[in-house]
């Protein structure tokens, strides 16, 4: 209580500071309220709001006269202000007012039903009668009272405003006037009207929406409109307006969501595709507030119990994160900065989002393994991996951004991780630098649509091109990651792909792409909560095993949006395209260095079966050609395998097939079926075996690839050309084989 309640009442005070202090509530109120406050006389406990309205309705005339009569400057100014306000309100004739109208009427009904004594009921601060009350109240209280009265008069007169053709807010007015009309009608029908039934949501007419764009709308109105719109869309058959298509409602909803939550249209469209309408608003609301701060105990240095105790002693309010984590703690509030406590500096915990625990839990690295973290900054997941491995084994922590690597180094040293090598490569170079990892974690760079709460700039800065670019990079990284895993690892062969995005293009689509391109399969992540990944989305269809991946959302799991998928590589062989032409030319015993090249063209690859790798004795060279249907100028020839000692009959055919690109394409185009037929003659098993062995051979020598690759390329180039005579021979052979 900072002000005197009755300025006119001068109280004699004694000297000194304490006398000047405002006395407690009871003493102050006792001066006004003559009746005692007792439990018997408990009517003073009832809210005075109702009383006010009734009073004001009754004393409307009085106060109006009073208002006009006064000549105090303050009141005049307020009058003007209020008049302006009321004019604005009049124009709006807002839903609010309509509702207020209803509310007040409803309340009035309630009041009528009550049998309390209005006369005895005491208003705020107990001014017993309105005339003197106006004097006793402060100017601002008087103004508020008058506003209330004006609102009521406006509400009662709203019917008169129907014909008001104010250009500016015509659309809203029409909409709300319709509602008011409805409201009035319904009130006539039934006294005990349900407020929700009264409001029929009407779509604005096209012209008015244009005008809407010019003027800034009241956010409350938009919010209400969103809610109503969604309500209609959920019960479309019952609540729709005649003649209006669903698409119109949805387009209005999109516009409103963009305005209210400040997203760009692209993102809103994507979100509408992803979420059912009931969840959509929850998701958008969840993105407005931050997720709770979480920390991860560093079990290399302490235990969660001890850490929790130490932090509580410092004044931190925390709780274990959940059943699913043994090392997580959630911080509710803290009197000390949680990122600077001595425990933090000693490396006993790390600030990390809850969703970042999940991919490492899914990866579950074992002690003594060789693990790669391809995109590791700022080092939270890397250190979690290290603590799960108890500082045994080896971790390679890589990131493409040198600046962010500093934080990785800092965190690693602070947390006492000793088994890590930190390097600064582009992730796509990976199998060349080092391969044969037991487990790989790829937390791919993404559009960040799951962490909008942390970075609101994402709302407006992302568009189609960004998503496509991210998706492309993620696909490349994922293939490199897969190639870096050693499928024959005794304890591993696993890869976890995760992103902090909720877009299907960056998540399921990328994993599906990898499934087609490599010998990997999805396995359960081991996370028993979270939504399953999509197996189909709009026009796309994904592999059914995609439902083993997991999606996490801010509004349902209270952690950042996340996607986690765990893949197991079952063979080190890299599958090639189906339009493969077996070729034997034994002069090169090269390893293929062109792993990357084979990826792009053919969408389908003959996945090698899970048979154990055939011994290298039977390996052949296989030249792969671009399928005719691709018709591209790029020609990829891949020659694999160690020394070829296969049957001689294949040889001539092989030679015929070792053509240059265009010629091969021509042949393929001319007689695609015959070419395929020629292949089909050879047992398909053999071809796969050949690919397997060649790949197996290649894999073991992966570290020497660079050197050998160079040899082979130049060597092969010499061999690719075929003379004209041979071409004719080839044709004849093909025709013969038909």
């Amino acid at each position: 209580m900072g002000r005197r309640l009755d300025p006119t009442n001068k109280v004699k005070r004694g000297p000194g500071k304490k006398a000047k202090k405002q006395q407690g509530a009871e003493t102050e109120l006792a001066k006004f309220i003559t009746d005692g406050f007792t439990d018997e006389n408990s009517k003073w406990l009832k809210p005075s709001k109702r009383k006010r309205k009734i009073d004001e309705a009754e004393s409307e005339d009085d106060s109006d006269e009073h208002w006009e009569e006064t000549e105090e400057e303050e009141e005049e100014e307020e009058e003007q202000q209020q008049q302006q306000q009321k004019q604005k309100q009049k124009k709006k004739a807002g839903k609010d007012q309509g509702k207020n109208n209803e509310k007040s009427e409803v309340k009035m009904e309630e009041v009528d039903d009550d049998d309390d004594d209005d006369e005895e009921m005491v208003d705020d601060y107990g001014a017993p009668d309105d005339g003197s009350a106006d004097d006793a109240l402060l100017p601002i209280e008087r103004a508020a009272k008058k506003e209330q009265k004006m609102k009521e008069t406006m509400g009662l007169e709203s019917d008169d405003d129907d014909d008001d053709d104010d250009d500016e807010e015509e659309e809203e007015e029409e909409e709300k006037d319709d509602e008011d009309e409805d409201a009035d009608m319904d009130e006539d029908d039934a006294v005990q009207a349900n407020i929700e039934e009264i409001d029929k949501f009407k779509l604005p007419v096209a012209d008015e929406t244009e005008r809407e764009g010019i003027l800034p709308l009241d956010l409350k109105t938009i919010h209400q409109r969103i809610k109503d719109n969604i309500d209609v869309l959920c019960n479309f058959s019952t609540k729709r307006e005649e003649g209006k298509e669903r698409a119109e409602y949805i387009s209005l909803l999109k516009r409103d969501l963009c305005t209210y939550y400040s997203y760009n249209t692209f993102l809103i469209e994507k979100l509408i595709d992803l979420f059912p309408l009931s969840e959509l608003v929850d998701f958008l609301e969840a993105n407005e507030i931050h997720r709770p701060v979480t920390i991860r105990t560093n079990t290399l240095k302490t235990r969660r119990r001890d850490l929790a105790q130490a932090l509580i002693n410092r004044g931190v309010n925390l709780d274990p994160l959940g059943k699913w984590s043994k090392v997580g703690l959630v911080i509710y509030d803290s009197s000390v900065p949680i990122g600077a406590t001595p425990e933090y500096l000693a490396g006993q915990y790390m600030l990390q989002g809850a969703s970042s625990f999940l991919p490492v839990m899914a990866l579950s690295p074992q002690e003594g393994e060789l693990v790669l973290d391809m995109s590791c900054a700022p080092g939270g997941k890397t250190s979690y991996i290290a603590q799960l491995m108890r500082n045994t084994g080896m971790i390679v922590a890589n990131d493409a951004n040198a600046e962010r690597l500093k934080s990785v180094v800092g965190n690693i040293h602070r947390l006492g991780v000793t088994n890590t090598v930190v390097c600064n490569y582009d992730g796509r170079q990976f199998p060349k630098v080092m391969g044969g990892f037991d487990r790989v974690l790829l937390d791919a760079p993404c559009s960040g649509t799951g962490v909008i709460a942390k970075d609101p700039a994402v709302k407006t800065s992302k568009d189609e091109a960004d998503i496509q670019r991210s998706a492309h990079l993620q696909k490349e990284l994922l293939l490199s990651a897969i190639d870096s895993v050693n499928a024959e690892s005794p304890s591993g062969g696993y890869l976890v792909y995760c992103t902090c995005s909720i877009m299907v293009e960056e998540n399921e689509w990328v994993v599906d792409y990898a499934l087609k391109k490599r010998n990997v399969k999805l396995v359960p992540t081991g996370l028993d909560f979270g939504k399953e990944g999509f197996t189909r989305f709009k026009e796309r269809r994904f592999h059914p095993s995609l439902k083993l991946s997991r999606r996490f959302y801010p509004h349902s799991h209270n952690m950042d949006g996340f996607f986690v998928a765990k893949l197991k590589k079952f063979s080190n062989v890299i599958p090639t395209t189906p339009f493969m032409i077996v070729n034997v030319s034994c002069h090169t015993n090269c390893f293929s260095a062109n792993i990357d090249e084979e990826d792009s063209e053919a969408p389908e690859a003959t996945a090698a079966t899970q048979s154990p790798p055939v011994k290298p004795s039977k390996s052949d060279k296989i030249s792969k050609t671009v399928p005719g249907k691709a018709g591209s100028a790029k020609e990829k020839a891949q020659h694999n395998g160690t020394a070829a000692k296969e049957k001689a009959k294949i040889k001539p055919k092989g030679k015929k097939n070792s053509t240059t690109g265009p010629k091969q394409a021509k042949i393929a185009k001319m007689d695609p079926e015959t070419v395929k037929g020629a292949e089909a003659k050879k047992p398909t098993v053999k071809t796969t075996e050949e690919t397997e062995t060649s790949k197996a051979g290649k894999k073991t020598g992966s570290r020497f690839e660079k050197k050998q690759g160079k040899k082979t390329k130049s060597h092969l180039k010499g061999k690719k050309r075929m003379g004209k005579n041979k071409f004719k021979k080839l044709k004849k052979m093909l025709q013969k084989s038909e």
Partner: protein
Amino acid sequence: MRPLTDEETKIMFEKLSKYIGENIKLLVDRPDGTYCFRLHNDRVYYMSEKILKLATNVSRDKLVSVGTCFGKFTKTNKFRLHITALDFLAPYAKFKVWVKPGAEQSFLYGNHVLKSGLGRITENTMQYQGVVVYSMADMPLGFGVAAKSTQECRRMDPMSIVVFHQADVGEFIRNEDTLT
């Protein structure tokens, strides 16, 4: 990445022995394998031999860090021990200093330890002896150099310095950039 030359090894071991004395051999011959020191970009890294093998695959300009960084050689070939070595110094430290809770924060900000903040100090600490600084809860905070011997410390006035600050864990936040 290259092994340390004899010169460099000598300088570094001298520095280390100030803090841990002859326990240096415990650093090299560990039960879980042999560990070694390597030099990369003027910094000394301590790693096990297994990681060494792995790290040789990484090209020199792309390698950022291996194992644990102990410190760096300055331009004038002096060895400066970094806070990142604390985990290895603390268990083998010969001379320790405990600071009172009130002085903890001050030390973590990079200030020297005053007599008023001194809790305990190991007996027989020589002047200018390397010491490891602990909090009263036995948590290592950093290391420094004793300004006075233990006997002198007893007789000093409260505002004088007893331990010169060399490195503290607060540097993980203050000097994150210089760790690499």
